[in-house]
């Protein structure tokens, strides 16, 4: 029988088996586990599991589906591979058909069943995912996530199980080997992004911006395993028993089919190359040496007066190319050597000084996501140094499990400091004011660039290919550039121009939340009551929504907030506010309470956090706006009810039982109660403190003093004790029980 006919017969036989259809059905159901049982994406909140809609309804189900389908198809593969041996007809079938050909056809048919299961899963879950994710649903992302997270796990399980069976010829041993292989991925290999074959590392997924960089690293992980497992599979075909011979006797016969050993060598070598030369992460030293970063011997003779960058991102491949022009001033009259920080993924292709090529050296000394490039300068006084560079920007290897931040795609672009252009390492500017930093970049229509801090962007015409040419103007030695489908709102609040940049996908939600008036109210209220933000710019302030989880940062006239602050689920959290606009106000109040060095990194046992003062401030704003009755009903009464409930909790009343529990249970329980403590108990305590210190005005004065306090650089955080001391109260005074 010809191979193709045999393949068709095998497909027909497999699809007539009810077990196959059961496997397909269970595979179709397996993503459900990602909704409640297996949720590997990191939560942005400690109080309750909270991730983006895409993460909750696409990422987690696809990852759970990957594990479920891998287990199911491993079982099916093991049963199918052992079928003729278990029925004791293998001697007959081997006499009629080539066992090698039979093995290929079996794996092919099982793979086709896996593809069918994947198609069923895609079709079955699409309406649910569309319904749940609403405006952030993207069809291509839905398909891409399932095909890269789930399908490869299934195919790898088939390849591994078939290989294990063909080598061992024992059903029980095959299943044990598969269990070990799957467990390795989830335990011993869990810290290595490339080795996690069944559960690829996905830290977070974006609703509003891009997931391309994340998908690229997951696909690379899949490529590595595909090569490795194809190699293993080819090895197993060498071991297919023939002519009644044992493992080695059969291998000696099979090795005569030259394509098999060739396939083994090619696949395993390719796998090795793919593993060793992965392009996504740099090779920074594991030990972080901050001294080397700060104690730099600066060149005393070379200064720069301006930097201009021609940026050319390739949004299809995620690569970036550019030409940076540095106006240098060499005061020594002698040749000098200067250093630049470059992203370790970039390669400097040429350096010219006043249009003459000069020598440069790539030190390949990856450290903290930078590497040094040394350039030899001529003795001339005025030098126009042009550096051409580019490549695939690499992320810091320290963050191998949370890849995806350096996105360059049609959805989002984030290029900061040395990722945008080589950064002066050992030379500075000599003027009082930072020198101009300008750049030019072409972006597709609908993609708006935003510069962090006080930099500005200006549209400078359209190109014939439909892209838009932008001019970026900033100052200093580096820029931080974001680009996405940004919408901006300018509001005059607290005497400054506040510009709020957020994704167009949030337009409806923001409109429903009255974003303009909320922003104005929060800025007016907080500036008046607590003081201006330390990072206000020169009469302007930018608030930028970015593709990130885990808070934001602020400096020099700008503040960025992770998109999780605006996700639709979060805006419905009753503990943060009585409605979407009030929750939005809560998130913006975090600009005063919660940014940078305001609070120490939170642990689940610590009830003092940014949330207490933020919720209290939101309450005060709503009291001022809607009156006392409204604020009491929607804030104080809600806190009181939650706190009453909390004090009745069995473990709160009997902490001795909590102590008795194993650490994991204890942490889970304390964690589950921490939300109430932070969002309800602490605001009630602050409210009680307000009464004890003499009223709202007195409390405002205390909070304003705390907000504008002089920071101790060794421990710049606002502690609970600082708060109590400022109120002249003790912990016992604020006891609510």
């Amino acid at each position, binding site marked *: 029988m010809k191979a193709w006919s045999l393949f068709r017969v095998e497909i027909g036989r497999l699809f007539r088996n009810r077990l196959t259809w059961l496997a397909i059905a269970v595979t179709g159901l397996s993503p459900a586990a990602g909704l409640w049982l297996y949720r590997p994406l990191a939560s942005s909140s400690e109080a309750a599991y909270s991730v983006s809609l895409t993460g909750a309804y696409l990422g987690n189900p696809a990852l759970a589906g990957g594990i479920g389908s891998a287990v199911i198809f491993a079982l099916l593969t093991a049963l199918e591979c052992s079928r003729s041996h278990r029925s004791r007809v293998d001697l007959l079938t081997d006499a009629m058909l080539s066992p090698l050909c039979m093995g290929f056809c079996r794996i092919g048919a099982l793979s086709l069943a896996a593809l069918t299961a994947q198609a069923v899963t895609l079709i079955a879950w699409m309406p649910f995912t569309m319904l749940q994710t609403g405006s952030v649903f993207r069809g291509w992302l839905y398909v891409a996530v399932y095909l890269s997270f789930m399908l490869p796990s299934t195919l790898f399980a088939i390849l591994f199980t078939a290989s294990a069976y063909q080598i061992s010829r024992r059903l029980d041993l095959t299943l044990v080997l598969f269990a070990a292989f799957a467990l390795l991925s989830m335990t011993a290999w869990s810290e290595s992004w490339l080795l996690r074959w069944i559960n690829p590392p996905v830290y977070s997924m974006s609703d509003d911006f891009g997931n391309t960089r994340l998908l690229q690293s997951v696909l690379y992980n899949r490529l590595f395993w595909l090569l490795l497992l194809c190699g293993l599979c080819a090895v197993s075909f060498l071991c297919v028993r023939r002519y009644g011979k044992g493992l080695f006797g059969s291998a000696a016969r099979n090795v005569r089919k030259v394509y098999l050993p060739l396939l083994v060598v090619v696949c395993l070598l390719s796998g090795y190359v793919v593993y060793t030369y992965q392009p996504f992460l740099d090779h920074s030293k594991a030990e972080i040496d901050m001294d080397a970063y700060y104690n730099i011997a600066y060149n005393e003779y070379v200064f720069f007066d301006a930097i201009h960058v021609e940026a050319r991102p390739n949004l299809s491949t995620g690569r970036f190319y550019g030409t940076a022009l540095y106006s240098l001033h060499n005061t020594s009259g002698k040749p000098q050597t200067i250093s630049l920080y470059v992203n370790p993924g970039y390669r400097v292709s040429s350096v010219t000084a006043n249009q003459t090529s000069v020598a440069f050296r790539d030190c390949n000394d990856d450290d903290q996501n930078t590497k040094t490039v040394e350039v030899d300068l001529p003795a001339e006084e005025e030098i126009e140094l042009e550096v051409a560079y580019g490549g695939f920007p690499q992320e810091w290897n320290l963050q191998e499990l949370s890849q995806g931040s350096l996105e360059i795609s049609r959805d989002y672009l984030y290029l900061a400091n040395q990722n945008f252009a080589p950064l002066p390492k050992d030379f500075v500017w000599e003027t009082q004011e930072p020198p101009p930093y300008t750049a030019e970049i072409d972006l597709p229509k609908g993609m708006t660039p935003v510069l962090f801090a006080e930099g500005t962007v200006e549209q400078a015409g359209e190109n014939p290919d439909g892209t838009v040419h932008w001019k970026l103007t900033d100052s200093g030695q580096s820029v931080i550039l974001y680009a996405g489908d940004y919408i901006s709102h300018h509001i005059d609040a607290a005497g400054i121009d506040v510009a709020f940049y957020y994704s167009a996908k949030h337009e409806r939600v923001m409109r429903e939340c009255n974003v303009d008036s909320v922003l104005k109210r929060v800025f007016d209220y907080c500036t008046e009551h607590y003081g201006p933000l330390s990072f206000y710019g020169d009469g302007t302030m930018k608030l930028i929504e970015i593709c990130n989880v885990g808070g934001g940062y602020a400096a020099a006239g700008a503040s960025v907030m992770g998109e999780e602050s605006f996700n639709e689920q979060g805006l419905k959290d009753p503990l943060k506010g009585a409605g979407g606009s009030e929750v939005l106000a809560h998130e913006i109040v975090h600009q005063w309470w919660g940014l940078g060095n305001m609070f120490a990194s939170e642990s689940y046992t610590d009830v003092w956090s940014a949330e207490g003062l933020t919720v209290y401030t939101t309450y005060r704003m709503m009291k001022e706006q809607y009156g006392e009755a409204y604020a009491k009903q929607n804030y104080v009464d809600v806190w009181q009810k939650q706190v009453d409930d909390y004090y*009745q909790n069995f473990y709160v009343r009997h902490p001795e039982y909590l102590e008795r529990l194993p650490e994991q249970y204890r942490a889970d*329980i304390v964690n*589950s109660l921490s939300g109430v403590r932070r969002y309800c108990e602490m605001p009630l305590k602050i409210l009680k403190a307000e009464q004890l210190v003499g009223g709202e005005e007195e409390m405002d004065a205390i909070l304003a003093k705390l907000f504008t306090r002089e920071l101790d650089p060794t421990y710049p955080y606002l502690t609970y004790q600082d708060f109590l001391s400022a109120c002249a109260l003790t912990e016992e005074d604020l006891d609510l029980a």
Partner: protein
Amino acid sequence: MRKIFRYELRRAVCNKFFLGLLVVCLFFGWQTLNGEVIQGVAHTAPFSAWSFGYYLAQELPLLSVALLFFLWNVFSKEARRVNILTAATPVDAGSYLLVKCGAAVTAWLLLAFGVYTLGTIFLLVLFGPAVSLNDLLLPALISLLPALALVLGIGMMAGRLHPALLLVLAPVALAANLLPLPLEWDLFGATFFSEYPLTLEQLDPAFALPAAGWIAKAVYLAVGVGFAALAVHLERKTVLKGLQS
């Protein structure tokens, strides 16, 4: 009859399907114990009768589906095909059905015992002497038995009418805890165990079922037994009619 019972029981229990059901029930139970019961239900201790009752109530939809599957083995078309043969034997058709359903109930009790044992071991390991096994018996009995009787009775009637109705009943059983019934009439008791203690205005209340709750349980029990008796009676009548014709 004892031989038939033993045979039917072995048929129900000694197979991969029963083992699979047991694994699923234990896994679900483990999740419930780790997720909700460990926190303590309605501010009571995790090892209180209320929390334990809640645990069993959460398991009951799954256990009910298992019972419906056991009944499927009794009423499916394949199983009914041997009726012509059994009708020709001197065995009373009603008693025969009763024995087969008795075997299904016994298999179900084994599953329920597995779930019960998992719960008690979990609590004993974590809380040791604070757990009173005697206190856990009453909530177990009042949640398991009426539910068993009702699902059995309705299942037997449904299976007699048409075996496919058993499959229709399965999702109904799964959703039973979501039915907006008054607290005392809560079929499996998840809402009752988690909300009734909060109405007692007393912390750590001793386990007690209100009068309305006893009435509800008695009604469920009676309805279940009534339906089961009716199913047996109808079976007897049908077979007799078949023999006469």
